[in-house]
């Protein structure tokens, strides 16, 4: 059984914070996609995804993040910030070339501040 979990959402400074932890693979990615899309469709367009407790991501998770970031960028004032501190997860972001597509932060506070300022 995969260790993936996603937290209840919190909203701070009009920024929605989602926390996803454990292993985000092909079994978990649909849940992550569904959750992020629900916010985007509800016009909550400044999202922080906190991956501080994620220990693994795969290409399907990367696809979910890329899709969400692209949708948010097309929306007026929308933006996605990802919090990531796990060395190996950061390595996957790096080899995927996603550092140029998705804004990465080392703390949730930093990510919220960046989106609050941008908004």
């Amino acid at each position, binding site marked *: *059984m*995969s*260790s993936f979990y996603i937290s209840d959402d919190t909203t701070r400074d009009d920024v929605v914070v989602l926390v996803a932890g454990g*292993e985000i*693979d*092909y*079994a978990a990615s649909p849940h992550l996609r569904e959750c992020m899309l629900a916010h985007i469709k509800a016009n909550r367009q400044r999202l922080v995804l906190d991956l501080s407790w994620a220990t*693994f991501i*795969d*290409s*399907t998770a*990367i*696809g*979910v993040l*890329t*899709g969400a*970031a*692209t949708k948010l960028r097309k929306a007026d004032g929308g933006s996605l910030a990802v919090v990531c501190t796990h060395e*190996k997860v950061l*390595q*996957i972001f790096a*080899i*995927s*070339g*996603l550092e*140029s*597509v998705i804004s990465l932060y080392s703390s949730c506070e930093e990510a919220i501040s960046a989106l609050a300022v941008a908004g």
Partner: protein
Amino acid sequence: MQAWIERETASFAASELRLPALRSELDVARRYVEEAAAAFGFDADSCFELVFAVNEAVTNAIRHGAPDERGLISLSVVADVGRLTFVVRDCGTFAMPVLDTDTRSEHGRGLALMASVMDEVQLHIKPGSTVVRLSKARA
């Protein structure tokens, strides 16, 4: 030195895991790779890269391939001199992914990502059989 390496390799038992072609089985595949890579003596970084790459191959087999008549796909491991090879087999007919170099694309990264962390990735394809071999040498 050569004799030592050969003895050490001989002590590593090749094995095969046959698992249901279900996404819920991916963590079983990852634990199998992690244990085999650690037992072979890979450091933590290389273990992670092997887990990541093989996970991509098994994901592709589940997502795009086809299981055997019992609903299973195969993941096996074999040791060569200082080198470990994981083999993922399914009964699907490989379809070439649409190559997309756009980093914003949601799909099509799996093979490139596998290759980026392995020493060698081989794809053996024929109708009704897709075999991916992923090899990495120990430092």
